C-alpha cells in the first residue's frame, strides 16, 4: 500500500486513510464524552488514549514516521523528543503533585 521508497510522497492512499482514521477517532472521543458511554477514570483514560492514538496515526500517515529506510534519523529524533517531552510533562505533574500533598495549605486566619 505505501511504497517505502518513492511512492509515498505522491500517493493518495496514506493521506485519505489518515484523514478517515482521524475523523473516526475525533468522532468517537466526542461521542463517548458527550453521551457518557463510559464514566470516571476509564473515560479519562480512553479520551487521552484515543488522542495519543490519533496523534500516532497522523504521524504515521502524514509524516510517514516509522516508514523510512535505514538510517532512521527522523524516527530516532522523534523518539528523543518523546523522551524529553515525557520528562518535562510527567516530571512537572509528579513534582507539583508531591509539593501539593506534602506542603500544608496556609489557613487564611492566623490565631495571633
Amino acid at each position, binding site marked *: 500500500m505505501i511504497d517505502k521508497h518513492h511512492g509515498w510522497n505522491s500517493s493518495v492512499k496514506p493521506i485519505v486513510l489518515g484523514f478517515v482514521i*482521524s475523523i473516526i477517532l475525533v468522532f468517537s472521543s466526542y461521542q463517548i464524552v458527550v453521551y457518557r458511554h463510559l464514566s470516571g477514570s476509564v473515560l479519562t483514560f480512553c479520551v487521552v488514549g484515543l488522542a495519543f492514538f490519533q496523534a500516532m496515526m497522523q504521524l504515521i500517515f502524514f509524516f510517514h514516521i516509522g516508514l523510512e529506510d535505514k538510517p532512521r534519523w527522523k524516527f530516532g529524533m522523534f523518539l528523543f523528543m518523546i523522551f524529553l517531552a515525557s520528562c518535562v510533562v510527567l516530571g512537572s505533574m509528579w513534582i507539583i503533585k508531591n509539593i501539593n500533598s506534602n506542603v500544608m495549605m496556609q489557613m487564611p486566619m492566623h490565631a495571633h
Partner: protein
Amino acid sequence: MKELKKAPLEKFPDSHHDIYSKTVFGFWLYILTDFMLFATLFAAYAVLHNSTYGGPPAKDILSLDTAYIQSHVFLISTLCISFSGMYAHRRQAKLVNFTLIVTLLLGFLFLFLQFHEFHHLLQKGHSWVKSGYLSAYYTVVGTHTLHVVLGLIWIVLLIGSTFTRGVTPATIRRVVCMKMFWQFLNIIWVFIFAIIYLLGFI
C-alpha cells in the same frame, strides 16, 4: 592540471545528501522543538487545570461544539494541504495552487471560530488574569492560534511563490515544509481538543 577526485555519492552509507532531504530533515528537527514548546505549555496546563480560583469550571465557560467543529475544519484543511504536497511531487502546479487556496480558506474559517470563542469568553469576563486555569488555557490555545496565524501568512506567501514560479525544486521543498508545519499544528490541536476541551467536560 590536477583533477580533484570526488567520492561518488553511492559510496556514502547514507544516501540522503540531496538538498531536499537535508531541508526536510532540518525542518523536521524544528517541528520537534516546537513539539517541545507545546509540551512545556501542556505541562503548565496539567498543573493548573484545577486552579479556577473559585470561578466556574471549564464546562461552564468553554464551548465543546465549537471546538468539535474546529477539529473537523482543521482536519479537512490538513487533508487539503497534504494533497498540495502530493501534487507538488507530481509536478501538477494548478492543483497545488488550488489546494493551497482551499487550505487558506479553511484556515481562515478555523481562525474565525477561534477568535469568536475568545471574544465570547472575554466578553463574559473570563480573561487570563482571573485564574491560573484561565492563564494556562489562553497560553496553550493562544500559542496554537498564533502558530495558525503565522502559518496562514506563510501560505499566502507560498501561494504567491507557486503562482509566479510554478513547481520547481525550490517550491516543492517549500510546499512540503508548509505541509509538515500544518500537519504538526493539526496534531497539537488534537491534544488541545482532547485534553483541554474533552477532559474539561468530564
